[in-house]
């Protein structure tokens, strides 16, 4: 297990170096940065002085090395747009996105798994047919449409929930949370419902399909032939086998949630990283874009490693070291 972890960490480092290279290259796409730093009538000597001071005269790989070294400490330089450190900007915005994604992911799991089990165990019931119908809508409607529909119904017509912003937030250290106030919680409802809808239906349909597959296997038939109770067969014997593929998809989708958060944050004017990124794109604010890219990649890498570790917990066949020890 330890060997596996070390291998995965080394792999992850290479992935992050590659991502950093792409982020670094973004700066070059925007043309010679010196042009935007000196006055238009600057002499060649003045330009060279700036170039030398910023280290831009050095070979590319030295510059890349410096970029990586500074990025590793969280230093992505100053935002070109509002001249504040990029890391501060991201740190301000991170809690909003994290809370939104956390609530959406939690909702999709807590509702998706039970609904998937329910529809798998009663494949012909009316409630299953209804859920399958609505899940088809959930999986095929673009999220921005559902978001706008949610605003129309719950904010404009019914007036129950706010249509934008995070409500009142409470600061705990550098983390600003909306979990502790009523308005913060109310503000979370619509965006997280919009964000989770696709994942929820995906997980429900996936759990249903996997569970029905597992219920057809020989070991479930043998469990029935041994007279085990339905409860044990469904929740002990079948569920654990069902969840193995579900975890993979959920891990991948968790990254997708962060990516989709950009759309949700735009629709609900949610002050998160996604909104920051959209602003950065429209202003050509490369340091923010580069930092966002690196950060999101890091989250993906961490999630995928966690998923692989979870596999070993759920599926004993993958515990290579353990299997060897038992022989």
């Amino acid at each position, binding site marked *: 297990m330890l060997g596996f972890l070390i291998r995965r960490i080394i792999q992850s480092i290479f992935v992050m170096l590659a991502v950093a290279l792409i982020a670094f290259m973004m700066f070059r796409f925007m043309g010679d940065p010196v042009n935007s730093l000196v006055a238009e009538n600057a002499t060649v000597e003045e330009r060279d002085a700036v170039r030398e001071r910023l280290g831009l005269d050095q070979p590319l790989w030295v510059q890349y090395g410096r970029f990586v070294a500074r990025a590793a400490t969280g230093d992505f330089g100053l935002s070109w747009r509002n001249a504040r450190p990029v890391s501060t900007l991201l740190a301000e915005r991170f809690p909003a996105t994290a809370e939104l994604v956390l609530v959406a992911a939690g909702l999709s799991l807590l509702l998706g798994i039970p609904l998937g089990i329910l529809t798998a165990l009663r494949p012909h019931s009316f409630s299953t047919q209804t859920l399958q119908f609505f899940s088809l809508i959930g999986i095929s409607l673009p999220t921005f449409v559902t978001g706008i529909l949610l605003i129309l119904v719950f904010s404009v017509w019914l007036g129950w929930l706010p249509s934008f912003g995070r409500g009142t937030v409470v600061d705990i250290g550098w983390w600003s949370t909306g979990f502790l106030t009523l308005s913060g919680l109310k503000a979370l409802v619509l965006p997280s419902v919009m964000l989770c809808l696709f994942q929820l239906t995906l997980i429900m349909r996936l759990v249903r399909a996997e569970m029905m597959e597992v219920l057809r296997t020989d070991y479930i038939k*043998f469990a*029935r*032939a041994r007279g085990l109770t339905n409860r044990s067969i469904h929740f002990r014997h079948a569920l654990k086998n069902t969840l193995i593929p579900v975890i993979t998809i959920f891990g991948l989708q968790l990254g997708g949630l962060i990516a989709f958060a950009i759309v949700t944050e735009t629709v609900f004017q949610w002050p998160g990283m996604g909104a920051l990124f959209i602003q950065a794109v429209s202003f050509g604010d490369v340091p923010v874009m580069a930092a966002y890219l690196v950060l999101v990649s890091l989250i993906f890498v961490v999630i995928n490693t966690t998923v692989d570790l979870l596999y070993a917990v759920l599926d004993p066949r993958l515990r290579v070291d353990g299997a060897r020890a*038992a022989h």
Partner: protein
Amino acid sequence: MTILTVENLTVCFPGRRGTINAIEDVSLSVSAGEILGMVGESGAGKSMTGAAIIGLIEPPGRIAKGEIRLEGERIDNLRPEAMRRLRGRRIGAIFQDPLTSLNPVLTVGEQLIETIQTHLRLPRSQARERAIDWLRRVGIPAPEARIDTYPHQYSGGMRQRVVIALALCAEPQLVIADEPTTALDVSVQAQIIALLRKLARETGVAVILVTHDMGVIAETADRVAVMYAGRIVEIGEVADVLTAPKHPYTSGLMASIPRIGERPETLPQIEGAMPRPHARPEGCAFAPRCPHRMEICTRERPEPRGTLTRSVACHLTEEVPA
């Protein structure tokens, strides 16, 4: 002592093109400690008979007619919950493929202990003792250590031993073994067969051994039922049926077993194929392939003649020696 009696059992599957009878008028009985073999081609209804006895016919299939009695008590009309309690406790089942019969994410011990505790009121420690004891009885070396390992850490033969332990751990009176050696290497097959014989003798469990392998029947079974197109065509003591088959189908089966030392130009075989359930002929289902076909065979279906222990369903057989 008779453990199981099946009388005129018919299992039907209602479908779009009308109702199909998977098995028809199957009658048999098994006594304690006895091994009853069931042979026949794929689709003859051997496994379906086993599934009907243990109450696990896949819907929409259902028992249309007949009775199943376990120790004199009818079990074919029990409620699902009563039938569940009976499975494992009074009727065990051994499945064909040991590689897929065990749950990969639970240890062998967890699966055994759960089965024991479902049927017997035992504290966990005693259930574990019993599980270890059963692993030892089926020939797993070092059961104290192996009990906490997962199925993938066992070989195919060892897994089939675990399956047998799982089927017998609540000490049922009857066990239905559906092709228990088909998925195994030949060398391992003999070991599993020997183990089944030994356990049947030791525990007095009645065994219904479903197989298509005449060799396995000859080695293991006390009596044999030959199935063809959903019906039992011949049933009797293994020695009688194998050496003096009365039904032309049984004779054909026996003749098609290749013998060492003989190299005939063509291997003997029964011409044609078994009719599908929805296309069974009017009279005897074997008539189209039968070398001794008579005029009556295509008109009238032969009823089984004889006793529950030795009977033949063929117009050729007028009298069956008791």
